[in-house]
């Protein structure tokens, strides 16, 4: 919701149509006139980690370049100077080794934040994330708790090629014992990072490199050091009544843009920001579909066995009779990410793809098969 207010406030009304669109926004701005501070996702993450490290001496940070270099993406800027080398540790390029060390430290009661430079490198350490961290609480019948956070950028960046662009949400979200979070806005980043650090179980925190520099308005409540978002609760970013669009991370921005385009064509889309991939907020998604009767799932990753597949199954299981159209699944292309810019653009979902899918569910355009 704040993202929409921010975006609309920037648009200059030049036609009667957009005046009608912006009028409620001006009204909203007047009501919330005290909450106008903007914050980048990078600063949101940095401040959240800083505040949690300050509040709890057991929290420490480790990863490649997190200390002296101030963070590969500057997320951990200033933390080495503030907390010293005992709590902010630069590791060698040894994901399996340092992830194991992080999990072992968590076994003993510390609260590590382990950074992967990108989640592509988490595959080097995935045995420790799954077998050593996720499953230990169950295998030990509750004796061993693993309060660890694995964080880093996930998904496609720009032009980094096949080995540096994969989305790992489906892999981690399928594993019992893990919690998987994917923030979109600065409010999400702050609230979910704090929740992740405070959580007694292992949390995989999937950020997005292209969102780090984006600014979002944040209220005074969000800026408070006690601010925390609940894990397992999705957020309705934009209310609507004709079609539900679910998305997470960068795709939330695309879904909101698609909703804007759709509203001009008379289709009112409800955009759900998942925030939590595991546990998935099945209740919010199903309640929304029961209201709109149509669903489009959006994700950046590969389509097979993806997040959209799980959401489709959930809706078919819980709300089958409410569906008025087949569920549309928008995902990345089923190929390793190409390098050439035009191919890369074709390999990730674009706003037009979401708009077309939403229209298909509303029977506003012919099906894919007919247009092929």
């Amino acid at each position, binding site marked *: 919701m704040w993202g929409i207010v921010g975006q609309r406030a920037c648009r200059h009304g030049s036609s009667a149509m957009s005046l009608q669109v912006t009028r409620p926004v001006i009204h909203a701005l007047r009501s919330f006139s005290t909450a106008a501070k903007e914050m980048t996702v990078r600063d949101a993450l940095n401040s959240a980690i800083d505040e949690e490290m300050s509040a709890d001496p057991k929290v420490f940070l480790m990863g490649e370049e997190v200390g002296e270099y101030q963070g590969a993406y500057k997320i951990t800027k200033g933390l080495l100077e503030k907390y010293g080398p005992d709590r902010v540790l630069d590791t060698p390029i040894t994901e399996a080794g*340092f992830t194991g060390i992080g999990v072992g430290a968590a*076994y*003993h009661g510390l609260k590590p934040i382990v950074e992967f430079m990108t989640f592509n490198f988490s595959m080097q350490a995935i045995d420790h994330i799954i077998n050593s961290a996720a499953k230990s609480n169950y295998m030990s019948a509750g004796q061993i708790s693993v309060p660890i956070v694995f964080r880093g950028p996930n998904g496609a960046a720009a032009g980094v090629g096949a080995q540096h662009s994969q989305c790992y949400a489906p892999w981690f979200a399928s594993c019992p014992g893990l919690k998987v979070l994917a923030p979109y806005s600065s409010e999400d980043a702050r609230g979910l990072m704090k929740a992740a650090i405070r959580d007694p179980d292992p949390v995989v925190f999937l950020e997005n490199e292209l969102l780090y520099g984006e600014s979002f308005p944040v209220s005074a409540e969000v800026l408070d050091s006690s601010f925390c978002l609940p894990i397992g609760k999705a957020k309705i970013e934009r209310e609507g009544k004709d079609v539900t669009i679910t998305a997470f991370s960068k795709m939330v921005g695309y879904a909101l843009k698609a909703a804007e385009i759709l509203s001009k064509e008379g289709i009112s889309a409800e955009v759900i920001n998942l925030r939590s991939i595991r546990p998935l907020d099945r209740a919010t998604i199903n309640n929304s579909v029961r209201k709109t009767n149509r669903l489009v799932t959006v994700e950046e990753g590969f389509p097979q066995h993806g997040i959209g597949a799980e959401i489709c199954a959930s809706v078919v299981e819980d709300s089958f009779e409410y569906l008025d159209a087949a569920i549309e699944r928008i995902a990345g292309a089923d190929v390793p990410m190409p390098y050439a810019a035009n191919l890369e653009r074709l390999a990730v979902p674009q706003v037009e793809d979401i708009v077309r899918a939403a229209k298909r569910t509303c029977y506003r355009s012919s099906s894919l098969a007919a247009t092929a």
Partner: protein
Amino acid sequence: MATMRRMEIAADSLYKAKLIRGFCHLYDGQEAVCVGMEASINKKDCIITAYRDHCTFLGRGGTLLEIFSELMGRQGGCSKGKGGSMHFYKKESGFYGGHGIVGAQVPLGCGLAFAQKYNKDENVTFALYGDGAANQGQLFEALNISALWDLPIILVCENNHCKDVNLFLLLDFLRLFFTLLLLWNRVLNGWLFGRWHGHC
């Protein structure tokens, strides 16, 4: 040590009777290692090992009832039947398992040592591993980091030669040996007697 030996032999019988399912890795012959360690450490020192953990768990204060219950998948087991042979834990006595992936326990052990140093404990961690795990890359990664960060970790290699020869490897070796012998015989026959075709 005698108790440990009898326990492992009993577990072997139960395994053969199919009352213990899945995996059952026995420590008979290695009892002296964990008993010797226990004699000189306390319960605030940590021990972590791989899946050959029955005796290590007993040494850390576990009971025979907990062990056999766990091995047979009963609620009274130390992991309530949810772990099995490879997943015994006793956190209050500093025993952190019980791990199924060869070599994984070494970086985990270095992490325990890291926590002890972080908390300014005066204690150390013992990470036990075998001749198989000695080949694991993550062991060298963890050793490297432990040296860089000066961690209070002691790595204990229990070389029970499990990696060296197993039955299948032996059979392959024998098969290779006899094939080579036959080939040599043919070549020799061919060269000596000009019998390059057929066999006599």
